[in-house]
């Protein structure tokens, strides 16, 4: 699973826009770009969920 972040303008912060399920980073890129294509993003970044660090867990 990959967390997808993007921004519409360079001055905007990256915002979490969703997730995609993919086995590798190439397919994750394809899926993220085709699923979240509702805006002309200036940047889109993907992070593997396995690389996340949990700071708070209730």
């Amino acid at each position, binding site marked *: 699973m990959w967390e997808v972040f993007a921004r519409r303008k360079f001055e905007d912060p990256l915002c979490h826009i969703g997730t995609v399920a*993919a086995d590798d980073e190439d397919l994750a890129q394809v*899926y993220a770009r*085709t699923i979240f294509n509702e805006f002309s993003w200036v940047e889109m970044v993907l992070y593997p969920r396995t690389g996340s660090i949990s700071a708070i867990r209730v």
Partner: protein
Amino acid sequence: MIESTASTTAALTTLVASLADNKYFLGRRYAEWCTSAPSLESAVAAAAMAQDEIGHARSLYPVLEDLGGESPENEPETRTTFSQSAFLSKPFDGWTDFVAANFLFDTAMSVGLEAAVDSSYIALAQRARRILEEEQLHWLHAEGWVRRLSSLGVSVRADLQERLQRIMPFSCGWFDLAVSDLVLSSILTQGTDELRARFLERIRPIVAVAGLGPL
């Protein structure tokens, strides 16, 4: 319209018609998987790629009018003689066919278009540049799925190998359209043999990493 001999114009018309027809039919074949791809993500990707291919065809058909004048043959809706590769004439048997066509045939056409980016025929050069921007995503999809299917076990890999081998002759054969007339008139920067070699250079590393046999 370009300044050229009749044989060059004929070769260029054949090339553009083949690109347009093959992209039109590849788009239709991709579109058939919009609702039946293995995952929601791959279904959306299939829909996007279908839309891209049909859009590419839509941009190429008007070039035929520039080359040969007005004719019902310049529109996919009224065209009677299509020149698509035979394997695109019927729906894919499975997702593996989709991946094989994406990996080989889609890539072959992109390699051909790369030789048209600096074409002396501006109408083709402009379209080639635009199409290749969108094709980057198709290549990522293709190589990702070739690796994925190859990792799913012996039988899936064998099936992929068989599908790839079936589509390979159509992909390599497509470069026959890059005749020397087109290179001599700077419409293409590379001819049949060079393009075929470039295509093989593109796909072989992925084939090797995926543990597939030679194609």
